[in-house]
């Protein structure tokens, strides 16, 4: 043990630092590289152009998620571009010796769901993936970076990338969440308070008794959206909850190696008294069910608040932002967000497409029906999540209520597959981004919320308070 107390970020960084580069950055070892069909083909192309191999194929894992149709299982897919990307990934994995969780494997799914459920995502490791929501894996006490395609090339070729160290902000949430308030609300609340670029240059360490009590799935939901607050990395220190989750997973160590791994994993947790560049404290009781009203994830309010009006802006920037957002969202300034008519309800994504998300919805939606005129889809985040749900009959409960039960994929989170909004449809969505056009229509509108709030919106036909709709208390 070193005398100087260190944060998890520093310890993982130090353990993976290879050397300092001439420009002052660090050549950082990336222990686990996750790839998918959208941001990897060009990287493999660059590798071929340079005549290079994948340095550590055994530490590289692929799946397909962004472009897979969730209502079409047989190839060739109707969309030839989607099929071409599928074929390319399959070819690249075969040629370079990379493990590919293809649809035929029964283990395919959104890359940020597959890594944890396979036990590939482990504490004290570094992870990179050509996707900004890679921060999800930080829930395990890993340092996980979303990267661009040139860096995918770097990691394929050298298992490293060039990076500068980040500052660390500890975000402590203490206390018990009120009934009907979820991990999604916690992260929407944090982003609302700290801003969409408040995390630039920082890794977020989520801590406090609220996080101590969270399940791994709840921790993943929060870490997932770190990037929406501008933080490239978010993590929770590993603890017994982490180890229990990992025990027995396909890629988890076994026997004596398991015990050694747990000891090692524990050693990565931030030391008491370590230095943070910033500390933010939040009282769990202050967090309400939160929904977005605008065009970035920081434009959120609690379900009982009114939509902001330009007059209440705190700065000229804020005012311009409100005007632009209201014009795009076609929402009335100063009016309650509750009651806003919705057209589509989307349950799924790497933020909220896990078993517990569907369990929570099924628990309350049983016996209720999706409102007429609302298109509702439920998309499990992985084939394994789908199977877990189906074993419990959750798919039937959701289907009975009027949700279409789909196959695993990114679906309507990002409009790279057939699941899209049409025209200016408004979608109550459990996903992570409400950017203009994000869900596939240039005038489509997204309201981000927790899965249970999506269910409440689906059954009432408008943005609603799930606590009232489902008598949550």
């Amino acid at each position, binding site marked *: 043990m070193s005398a100087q107390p260190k944060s998890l970020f520093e310890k993982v960084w130090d353990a993976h630092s290879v050397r300092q580069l001439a*420009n002052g950055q660090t050549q950082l070892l990336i222990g686990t590289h996750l790839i998918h069909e959208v941001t990897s083909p060009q990287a493999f192309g660059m590798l071929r152009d*340079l005549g290079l191999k994948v340095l550590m194929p055994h*530490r590289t894992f692929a799946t397909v998620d962004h472009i897979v149709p969730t209502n079409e299982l047989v190839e060739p897919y109707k969309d030839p571009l989607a099929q071409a990307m599928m074929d390319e990934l399959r070819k690249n994995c075969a040629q370079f010796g990379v493990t590919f969780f293809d649809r035929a494997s029964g283990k395919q799914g959104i890359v940020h769901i597959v890594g944890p459920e396979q036990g590939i995502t482990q504490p004290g490791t570094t992870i990179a993936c050509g996707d900004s929501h890679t921060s999800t894996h930080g829930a395990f006490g890993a340092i996980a970076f979303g990267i661009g*395609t040139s860096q995918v090339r770097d990691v394929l070729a050298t298992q490293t*990338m*060039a990076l*500068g160290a980040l500052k660390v902000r500890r975000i402590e949430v203490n206390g018990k969440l009120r009934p009907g308030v979820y991990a999604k609300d916690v992260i929407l609340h944090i982003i609302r308070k700290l801003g969409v670029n408040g995390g*630039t240059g920082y890794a977020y360490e989520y801590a406090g008794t609220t996080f101590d009590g969270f399940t791994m799935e709840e921790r993943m939901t929060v870490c997932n959206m770190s990037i929406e607050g501008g933080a490239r990395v978010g993590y929770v220190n590993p603890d017994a909850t982490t180890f229990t989750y990992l025990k027995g997973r396909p890629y988890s160590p076994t026997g004596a190696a398991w015990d050694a791994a747990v000891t090692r994993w524990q050693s990565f947790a931030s030391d008491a008294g370590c230095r943070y560049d910033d500390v933010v404290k939040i009282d769990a009781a202050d967090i309400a069910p939160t929904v977005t009203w605008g065009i970035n994830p920081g434009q959120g309010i609690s379900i009982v608040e009114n939509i902001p009006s330009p007059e209440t802006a705190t700065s000229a920037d804020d005012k311009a932002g409100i005007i632009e957002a209201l014009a795009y969202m076609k929402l009335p300034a100063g009016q309650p967000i509750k009651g806003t008519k919705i057209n589509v309800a989307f349950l799924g994504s790497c933020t909220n497409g896990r078993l517990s998300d569907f369990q929570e919805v099924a628990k309350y939606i049983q016996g209720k029906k999706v409102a007429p005129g609302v298109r509702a889809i439920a998309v499990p985040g992985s084939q394994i999540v789908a199977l877990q749900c189906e074993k419990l009959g959750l798919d039937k409960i959701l289907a009975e209520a009027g949700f279409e039960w789909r196959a695993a994929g990114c679906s309507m989170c990002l409009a790279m597959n057939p699941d899209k909004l049409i025209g200016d449809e408004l979608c109550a969505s459990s996903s992570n981004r409400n950017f*203009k056009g994000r869900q*596939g229509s240039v005038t489509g509108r997204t309201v981000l919320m927790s899965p249970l709030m999506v269910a409440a919106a689906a059954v009432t036909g408008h943005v609603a308070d799930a606590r009232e709709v489902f008598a949550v208390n």
Partner: protein
Amino acid sequence: MALEKITSVSGRGVYVPGNDIDTDRIIPARFMKCVVFDGLGEFLFYDVRHTPEGVPTGHPIDKPEHKGAKILLSGANFGCGSSREHAPQAIHKAGFRAVIAENFAEIFFGNSTTLGIPCVNAAREDIAKVAAAIEKNPNIELVVDVAALEVRYGSDKIPVTQRESARDGLVNGRWDAIGDLIDGIPSVQITAARLPYMAAA
């Protein structure tokens, strides 16, 4: 690997106002259904440059006086959201060689630097001054001087900042790290050997 030393970028500028311009806006996801980056340039800012019916909206980069501009100016938190390198690729393929903004989202900044596109930070009022000069004379030449950390235009100049590792990489021709990273592979193997989880199964 010898790379060009990017000490400055000269050319005409175009101002695209707004804060939090995300990478979905820079390059909408549907244009990422591709296995190469070629052809992305024409889809830069596509959904802002066109109505839903596909009619041009008169976006700044489409104005005749800004055709051929090489330097993009914008607001705060430019490039936030998705990590897609397709965003800086689209900017580059549309002919832009430098971006001036109040500040940049982390991943976008790194992706751009790796492509040799200098992203420099400037104060809002300074960006407004340059934008006003462009508005007055769209042909005015801007010089984004990465070495000296200033942008010169006409007889004026504004100070800019840039993370030192990026500046160093650009001006010394090592903005794409791949060569250095490959050189370090023997050390990579040593570091990996110390980490039990890196062992081959």
